[in-house]
Structures are given as C-alpha cells and as structure tokens.
C-alpha cells in the first residue's frame, strides 16, 4: 500500500517516480509540436490524433514522450499503465472560437470534436489512445487548483492492484491563455507540461509524497486541523507546473520542490527526494 497513517493522524500518500519528462511550448511552437511531438522508437503514433487536439493535450503528450526518451523506457513497458491528467482550463482557445461561430452561424458551425478533444478527460484519453495504455484514464482538476488536485488524486488512486503504475500529466499555460475570438492568445503565453511515471513506493531513488492531516482515530466528531489557505492566483501560478518543471530540470531534487497553495485542497506538501547521485545525473 502507498500510505501509512501515523500516530499524529497524518496520512502520507507516497509514490516512487520511475521517470519524468518536461515540455514547454508557446502558441507559435504548437503547430510544430502537433506535427512532431517527439521521437519514439518502434512505435507509431496515430497520425491525426493531435490534429484537432487542445494545445495542452499536445504539450502534455510531448512531455510523456520526453520522459520515455529521457529514461530509455519503451512504450511496451507501459501497456497496462493508467493515465491521470490534470490540465488547467482545457479547451479555452477552442471554446472562444466555437462560441463566436455558434452565436453567429448556429449549429452547423460547431465542430463535432469540441467535446471529445477539448474537455477535462481529453488529455488522458489521447495519451492512452496514442500509446496504447490500457489502465484507467481520467482527468482531474480543470480549474486553477488543477495541479494540486492532480497530485492528490494520483497519489490516493495509486495502488498495488492490477494497474502497475500511473502516468500523472500536469499542464498549464503561464500566463493563462487569454484568447481573442479567433482563438489566438498573447505571444508571451507558454504551455508547460510535466509528466511523472508513478509506481507504489518500493524504495526507489526518486520518491514523491504528499502529507495530509488524517482523520483522527477515536475522534470522529473532532474538526480536523486542515489549514484553509487563501486563494492566491500568483502563488498558484508561481508554484505551478512551470515551477515543478524547472525544479525537475534543475536536478535539485533533494530539497522540497514546492508547497502548493490550493483553494480546494488542504496544504499538500510535495516532496521529491533522490537517493542515488548516479541516477540523478542520468536523469539530468
């Protein structure tokens, strides 16, 4: 099991990270990435899968490929894995275009792919389809707290059951995309993505854990000590996917990565720890 309830009634949800990848793309980079999200030896990605996909799907998928290449892990290794993806405000650009068309021209103007390709489940579904992963796939978050929700959900969903591991894919535009009605956003917006391959803790080199206050045993009616943190747009952004990606790329894993402020979750304290200097250097 990937948790333990301690005497202080804190629950530690933990995992090993067996691979990670980081990707970034501006709006200008997206067409290129859509055509060629990354190399993958011995595996053919369905040709038009990303053709109408949301921008976050494209960059998130590229982060998974980056991880596989970086760690030299073949796609076949992940056949029974699950995918959990936490994009932030997926579909905003496509929605801006679709709403303008719908209000101007009606039903006929709406592309049928708007829901399948631009919803919260679309990123996880696309990765599952593209890479033939047959474990569970679902989306988490969607709003400002997407990253924290994704981390919490992944660590609590991960199990020793029939699914050997779980890809957690986190994506976010920084600054958040502000499209005009043609779907174009400001040039400075960059989509950041981090892909983490998680398995139940087994003493591996890179570990991740979230500590949350547990339900106090024997005190069913006691109000738990869940600090409620203020909503803070800047903090969510600064300590978001971009910061995690930068942290992972920097190789400074031994220090706590970040502390996420999140309106809908308790204070999730995320820690990465690398035990082996050799593997750390390999990942870098």
């Amino acid at each position, binding site marked *: 099991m990937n948790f333990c309830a301690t005497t202080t009634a804190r629950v530690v949800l933990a995992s090993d990270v067996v691979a990670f990848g980081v990707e970034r793309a501006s709006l200008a980079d997206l067409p290129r990435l859509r055509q060629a999200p990354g190399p993958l030896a011995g595996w053919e990605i369905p040709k038009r899968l990303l053709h109408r996909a949301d921008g976050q799907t494209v960059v998130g998928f590229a982060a998974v490929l980056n991880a596989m290449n970086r760690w030299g892990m073949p796609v076949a290794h992940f056949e029974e894995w699950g995918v959990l993806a936490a994009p932030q405000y997926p*579909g905003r650009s496509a929605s801006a275009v679709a709403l303008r068309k719908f209000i101007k021209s009606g039903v006929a103007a709406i592309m049928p792919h708007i829901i399948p390709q631009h919803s*919260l489940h679309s990123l996880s*579904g696309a990765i599952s389809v593209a890479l033939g992963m*047959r474990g*569970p796939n679902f989306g988490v978050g969607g709003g400002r707290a997407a990253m924290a929700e994704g981390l919490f959900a992944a660590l609590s969903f991960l199990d020793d059951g029939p699914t050997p591991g779980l890809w957690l894919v986190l994506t976010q535009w920084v600054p958040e995309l502000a499209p005009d009605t043609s779907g174009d956003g400001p040039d400075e917006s960059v989509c950041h993505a981090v892909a983490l391959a998680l398995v139940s803790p087994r003493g591996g080199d890179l570990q991740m854990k979230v500590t949350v206050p547990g339900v106090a045993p024997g005190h069913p009616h006691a109000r738990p000590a869940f600090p409620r943190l203020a909503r803070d747009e800047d903090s969510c952004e600064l300590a978001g996917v971009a910061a995690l990606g930068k942290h992972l790329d920097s190789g400074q894993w031994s220090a706590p990565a970040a502390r996420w402020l999140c309106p809908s*979750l308790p204070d999730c304290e995320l820690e990465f720890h690398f035990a082996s200097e050799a593997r750390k250097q390999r990942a870098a």
Partner: protein
Amino acid sequence: MTIGKEAWITGTGAVTPLGSGLATFARAILAGRSGVTTRQLLPDQPDTTQIVAMVDAIPRPPGCDASRFARFNRLEQLGLSCAAFALQDAGLWQERASRRIGLVFGLGAEWLRQWELDALQGGDRVCHPNRDAESTIDLIQEALELTGPAITVAAACASGNYALAVARRWIERGCVDVCLAGGCDLIAPMAYAGFHNLRALSRRTDAPQAASRPFDVDRDGFVMGEGGSLLVLESSDSARRRDARVYAEMAGFGATSDATHMIIPNTDPRPAAQAIRRALEDARVAPEEVDYVNAHATSTPAGDPAETRALRLALGSAAAHTPVSSTKSMTGHLLSGSASIEALACLAALEHQALPPTINLENPDPECNLMHVRGEAYERKVRVAVSNSFGFGGSNTCLVLRKVA
C-alpha cells in the same frame, strides 16, 4: 480492505429528469416512466424542437435563500442541490462543518459549460481568465462549509464512477471519514450541437419518448439528458457509530481503457470485459452472484452491441440469466451525470428488491442478446448490483454495489 474502512453509502441527493430525490426517482424508473420530451433549444433554429430529457426545477437546498440560490448558474445549482440534499438525507446536515467531508465531483466539460452559459448571456468570460477564479467544487465547499479535500474528476460519461472510486480510496486511507461523490451535467445548446454534428443523437423527432431505445434494433442514437446525483460515502465504522441508514456498500470498482479511439467504442470486447471482471474481483463477487446489471447502453448503433459482447465475455455462462437493463431509456443520457444516477438506479433496485426496465425495447437487436428487463419492472431478490459506465477517451468503468446485511 481494512475492517471498518469499507465504503458505505449512507445518503443520496439527486436531481433528474424524472424528479428529485431517490424516492421519486425510484418510483419513476420502476414504473417505466419516460423523462424525455421536446424543447426549443437552439437559438438559430427557433422553429424546431429538440429531443431532450431536462430538469424542470432544481430544488433549493436547505439554508440557502432564494436570492442567493438565484445567483448561481444552473450547473452550480445542480451540484449544490445534490450535495446539500445528500448530506441532509444522510443525517449529516447539522454536523457538516464539524466533520471532515470530502467532495469528488464528476464533471467532464465544466469550463466549456461555464463559458457557454456566460456567452449565451452576452458575456465573453472565455477570453478573460481572471474571471475564472472559482470552480464548481469551490462554490459547493464554501456554500456548505465543507472542510475536507475536494477535486473534480472527468472521464466523460464515466466521470461519476471515477468520482465514487476516488472517494472510496480516500475513505479507505483515512483522508476523510465522509465523502460526497458523483457527477452532474446539464444540456447546453453548443454541446447539443456538437453531439448533433457527431451524429450521435437520435433523430426520432416524431416520437420523442420512444427515441431512447437501448438494445432495440431500431435505435438510432442517444437522447441528451441533464441532472445528476451525489452520494454520501462513509466508512463503515463511522456509519455504525452513528447508527446511520445504509443504502449499500460500494464493494468494487474496475477500470480500463480501450486505447483505440477517442470516440468510437472498441469492437474488441476484452478491455471493457476486463473492467467488469476487475470490479467483480475487487468486490469478491462471482459472476453468478450478480443479481442485476445497469448497462451503460446509450441507444447508439455501435455502443450497445459492444457492451453486450463485453458483458457476455465478462460474465461467461452467467450472462444468460443475469438481468440487464438500461435506465437511459427513461432518463436519457446525462453525460457526466449518467454514472451516478445509474448507481442511484442500482440503489433503487437494492432498496425495492425490484429491477427497473429498459423501456422502448420492442425488438431486441440479435447482436444485443442479453437477459433484458423489457418494458416493465419486476420483483427479484437483489443483493449485488453492477453498473457499467463507458466514456470518450476509451474509458471503461464498472461499479459493484452490495446490500449490507
């Protein structure tokens, strides 16, 4: 499974095209009543009507005055109403702020809906990210003073089953001792247009109440519905301590992905069958012990036979005598809300010891050869009920609910 940490369902809140609350919903589905009607939905086609299953009125939750409730949009009202009445039904309304109550909300296209609702009122929120501060779960938490963790999950039409699965894990692991879980959705014109252009919707406009006809040879697509349900999951220890009424145990969950196509169901039944088998194994239930299957069956030409093959593969010889029905024939397809109201249909079967029917099933498709509950409900001993929910992105999920002795 740790003794005392089993996830029991002790409360329900529901807003459906057949009325609100489990009792009303159960009466309607066991009577074989259709909630499908026609409405004028599309602004550019004022002379046409669309076949839909809509919610007429969303009940205002206790403690929320009318003017405050009116400030929420319909999607938020749906979630808030389901959550509040579920807590009330569980007997946890008064003590909700003193317990750690989590929330796992299944909603696949939350922001698409929010932006559309705003745009149809003349707004341009989609272009202004700073107006998107609060998610629906934030509003529900704040309005109900909930202090536990809250997340939104999505697997399209399987969202509610994932919500229940995550909530169960939280209870097993001691992150919460009570958790609201389920899903909601509403009919929005642009979403309707998207499904229409995908050619996924029934076009039987001359007979709307006969339009949703899962497993029937003349089915031609699904009927879009709206509404949803949130269930209260609670550890068995907690439920026992407060002598709570228990509807059922959430005994098992299984999930897989087709990994073949974003929209079209896999013709290979093995991934979906594996999800069903995993759920049964998780619940330690043999196929012969399944008393009722609430099928995903949406009434589409491709989906219903695909599910039939999966059920036959998963249940083996037991498939021949396991009753199956699709309550979407009465409710329409509630998208993100569908899995949780179908869990509710299973609770109705467990509570009333009767099986809700598939209505409009006049000529069963030979490719859908199952033991159908056709046309009318009938009494039967129900101890174990299974609910399938599949979704875009190739999601296959299965839930096992068991009566608690």
